[in-house]
Every structure is written in structure tokens, then in C-alpha cells.
């Protein structure tokens, strides 16, 4: 044992073990218990440990569950698409059109060093009925009645999340743009491609890995977001995390909550894998 610890492999394993064991245990153990709970049932405070599929049946048949699950995935998809689309030109600008790259990257990341909860809360204040946006538009004389479509719907959720995840889209795309060999672009131009053609056939396909990375980083946590739908979603914008929280909180039905968590995780994983396969194929196609 002592001999092994003096070897290269031994030292490496020993030094990295605490961190990987910590994460490993805190992923595996809760997941195991979650799985166990999902096959149990709860009546008031008693946990009935008879194994049953009842929770999964309920999750599969309850229209509310299906509705919220689907809505969460659609909203997360919309957030991902909007964030990546809005972020791409910025990443492009920083990679190709400015020499002050570090300054721009810093400017873009600073807002996100503040509390997520507070930023979401701030959007609620901006979009509210008597909020900043409406009062500003009214005092400028642009509208006479407050706009009501701003807050408490899917739009507010998508806007807020597109703001919250912006740097997570900009940075990976910027890195993949930065990696492009500039002589490829010159070659494309010399071979007679217009700027637009060059962008679509050279630049864009080369940044597909960055787009995929950005999309996954945004999509996966967004499906399970709790704060944003709670604060700005209203009843139209509730997502699956709200339902899970209700099971662990007010409704006090942990087995169902555990089942919903697992179903949510499986759905996220499935959609994410599907997305990677499709995006990779598409990236090859347009080249």
C-alpha cells in the first residue's frame, strides 16, 4: 500500500480521491435514495415501503405533470435558442471586430457575479404592471395604459432566463470562433464565396461544437429552474421545479416528488442526447 502511494498513479489517485469521492457519493447516494423513494408511497407522515409503480403511473397519467414537464422542456428550448441566437453576434463581435477582447469579456461577465435571485427579482420589478418599464413608457408618453403582457407568462420567463444565462452562451461560442484558423476564411474569400456564403459554409459549421456546448450548459439547468418561474412566471409560466418543490414542501408527498425529479432528469437527458445527435448531423450537413 505504502509502496503504491509512492508511485505516480498512487499519488494521483490519493490526491484526487477526496474530491471525486465527495462528488461521487453526493451524486450516487441521493440518487439511490430518490429511486427508492419513488417506489414507496406516503400517507400523511407515514412512509409505506411497499414497492409500487403507483408514483410512476401518476406521473405518466396526471395531465398536470405531463403539461408542466412539456412546458418546462419547451421553455428551456426557447431560452436556449434565444440565448444562443442573441449571444452569437456578440461572440462574433468580440472574436473578429475588436482588439479589446479582455475588456469586452470582462464587461459581459461582471453582471453575472451578482446574485441570481436578485437579478430575477429585478426583472420582476422591471416588467411589473406598475413596474419600471410601464412607468417609464407612460411618463415618456409612448403608452397610456400599462402593458399587461410583460409579466407573469412564458415570455417573462424566457426573457429573464435568456438574460441569466447570457455569458454561458457567449463564452463557449467565442472560444470556438477564436479557434478558427483565419487562413480558412481568406481561402473561402479567394475561392469566390460571398461574405454570407462564407459565414454559412465555413464559420458557422466550425462553431457547431461551441453552439452545442452552450446549448447544453443552458438547457439542462434551465429545465429545472425554480426561481424564475416562481417570481416572473405567474400561473402561465410555472415549470416542473415548482411542482417538485410543492411535493417536498406544502403537499408533503416525497415519493411523488422523488419520482418527478427522476422523470425530469430522464427527460432532460433524453432531449439533450437527441439534440447533440441532431446538431452534430446538421453541422456536417451544411458544410
Amino acid at each position, binding site marked *: 500500500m505504502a509502496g503504491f502511494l509512492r508511485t505516480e498513479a498512487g499519488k494521483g489517485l490519493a490526491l484526487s480521491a477526496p474530491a471525486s469521492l465527495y462528488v461521487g457519493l453526493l451524486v450516487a447516494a441521493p440518487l439511490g435514495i430518490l429511486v427508492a423513494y419513488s417506489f414507496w408511497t406516503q400517507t400523511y407522515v407515514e412512509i409505506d415501503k411497499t414497492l409500487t409503480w403507483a408514483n410512476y403511473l401518476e406521473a405518466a397519467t396526471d395531465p398536470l405533470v405531463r403539461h408542466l414537464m412539456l412546458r418546462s422542456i419547451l421553455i428551456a428550448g426557447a431560452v436556449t435558442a434565444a440565448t444562443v441566437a442573441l449571444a452569437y453576434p456578440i461572440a462574433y463581435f468580440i472574436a473578429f471586430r475588436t482588439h479589446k477582447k479582455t475588456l469586452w469579456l470582462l464587461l459581459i461577465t461582471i453582471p453575472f457575479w451578482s*446574485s441570481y435571485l436578485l437579478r430575477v427579482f429585478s*426583472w420582476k420589478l422591471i416588467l411589473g404592471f406598475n413596474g419600471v418599464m410601464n412607468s417609464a413608457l407612460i411618463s415618456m408618453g409612448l403608452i397610456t395604459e400599462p402593458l399587461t403582457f410583460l409579466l407573469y407568462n412564458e415570455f417573462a420567463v424566457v426573457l429573464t432566463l435568456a438574460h441569466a444565462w447570457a455569458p454561458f452562451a457567449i463564452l463557449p461560442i467565442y472560444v470556438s470562433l477564436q479557434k478558427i484558423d483565419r487562413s480558412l476564411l481568406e481561402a473561402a474569400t479567394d475561392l469566390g464565396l460571398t461574405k454570407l456564403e462564407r459565414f454559412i459554409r465555413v464559420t458557422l459549421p466550425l462553431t457547431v461544437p461551441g453552439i452545442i456546448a452552450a446549448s447544453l450548459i443552458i438547457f439542462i439547468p434551465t429545465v429545472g429552474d425554480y426561481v424564475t418561474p416562481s417570481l416572473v412566471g405567474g400561473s402561465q409560466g410555472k415549470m416542473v421545479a415548482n411542482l417538485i418543490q410543492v411535493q*417536498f414542501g406544502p403537499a408533503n408527498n416525497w415519493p411523488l416528488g422523488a419520482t418527478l425529479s427522476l422523470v*425530469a432528469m430522464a427527460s432532460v437527458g433524453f432531449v439533450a442526447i437527441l439534440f447533440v445527435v441532431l446538431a452534430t448531423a446538421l453541422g456536417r450537413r451544411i458544410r
Partner: protein
Amino acid sequence: MSTPVSEPLNKPLSTAASKPRRRPLRFPWLLVYAIGYLIFLYLPVLLLPLFSFNDGTIVAFPMKGFTLKWYAQLGEQDTLLQAMVNSLIVGAVTALVATSLGLFAARAYVRYRFKGRELSEGLVMLPLVIPGIIVASSMLVLFISLGLKPSLTTVILGHVFVALPFAVSIMKSAFDDFDQSLEEAAFDLGESVIGTFRRVTLPIVAPGIVASLLVTFTVSFDEFVLAFFLSGNQPTLPVYIWSQIRFPAKLPNTLALGSLLLLASVLLLLTAEYFRRRSAKSA
């Protein structure tokens, strides 16, 4: 002769300097877009401080006048101060534990080649991509099953989990350019393993350690969902803010508190960035 290439600004400086600018002056759409985007990014962040000085309880234009009373009232709220103390404890312990774990792990990843290295490296990054609600709910179930009541301890256990990827990646970049021969030289000159680590390795990666401590502290200090599930009746600051958001009368105080937190987070992370750069430069 082809049309001028507009993209590669990154060509060697000599060509850019020797040739006159060939691109005709056109409207800089991308620059305008970039500035508009920056406004979008900063709008919600600057709004809180702006209205925290507003002498009125409603957040709307036109503003009423300048006041500092919302800040002054903060000091009188005992539950707020208790939540602040809780957050500071959780943040400090989280930062120390996550940075220590990250320090050793990063050292192993950069320095040694061993079986399972890639698996381990991937594993410690996993907390970044699991939805918060799932981490929170599953940890709550685990801790209750183990007989651990929700408390600051369980929050710390959760926060170390989410802060670890940040610690590992910062420490990895600190070790990345670390010159191995310095350690070998120390050995050859008769230093012990521990002596070498303390007198050679540690001083060189110290800026990285400071950066990691600051970043992991901030991650913990700002984290809400895990703390919401795991804190029981010992709320951290974000959990306290969450409880205050519902009361319109408390809004101005929440704005003042939020502004102070924004300022603290940004200052901490700018300091962290400074140390991170220094560690990259000195290595």
C-alpha cells in the same frame, strides 16, 4: 483580386500597419448591437442600486427623491443580521473545504498520469450540469434518511458540492503553468516533501488559492435553491431575501440589501480575477 477580407483582424500587425485600411467605412452594426446587448445585461443589475436610493416604496418612474433611510433601517433588523452571520459561516466553511479538495484534486490532474483521471475530472465537474432543484431535493431526502436535520451543516455539504467545480478549474489553471523543475530543485537542495510544498509550491499557487477561496465563497453566498431546501430554520441571506420579496412594504429594504450584496459580490470577484491573473502571470 478578391474582395477584402473583413473578418481577420487578427492578422499579424505588420500587414495591418503597412497597408492602408481597405474596408470602406460602413455603419458598425455589430458594435451597435454589442452596446445594446450590454445595456440589456446591465439594466437589471443597475436597477436595484438606483431605486434603493429612491424616497418611495414603489419601484417606478418618476423617482421621488434621494434617501439613505432604507439602508439605515437594515441595521435594525435582527433576523437579517442573523441570516447574514449564517451566510458568512456557510460561505467561509464552503470556501475552505471546496478549495482544499480542489487544490489536491487539481494538483493530481495536472501533475500525475493515472488510471481513472479523466473519469475523476469529469465527475467533479458534474455538479455544474445537474439542475439545482434535483440536487436540492435529492440531498434533502438523503440527509433526512441519514438522520441529519436541515441546518447550516447540510447547507455547507450541499454548497461544497456545487462550489467544487469552480475550485477545481481555478486551481487547475493555477497549477497548469507551474514549473516542475522548481520542486525538483528544492528536493535536490535537501527539502522534504512537505517543506517543498510549503516553501516552493504553495507560494507560487497562492494567488490561485485566494482566487478559488473568493469565488467559492461568492458561489455559496449567492446560492439560493439548495439553501432553500436544506437550511431548515437557519436561513441564509438569499433565503431571507426570498421571504422578504413577498412583502411590498419591505421592498425598499430588500432593494438596499440587494444593492449591498451586488456590490460585495462584484468587489469579491474582481479581487478574485486580479489574483487569478496574477497567478497566471507569475507561473
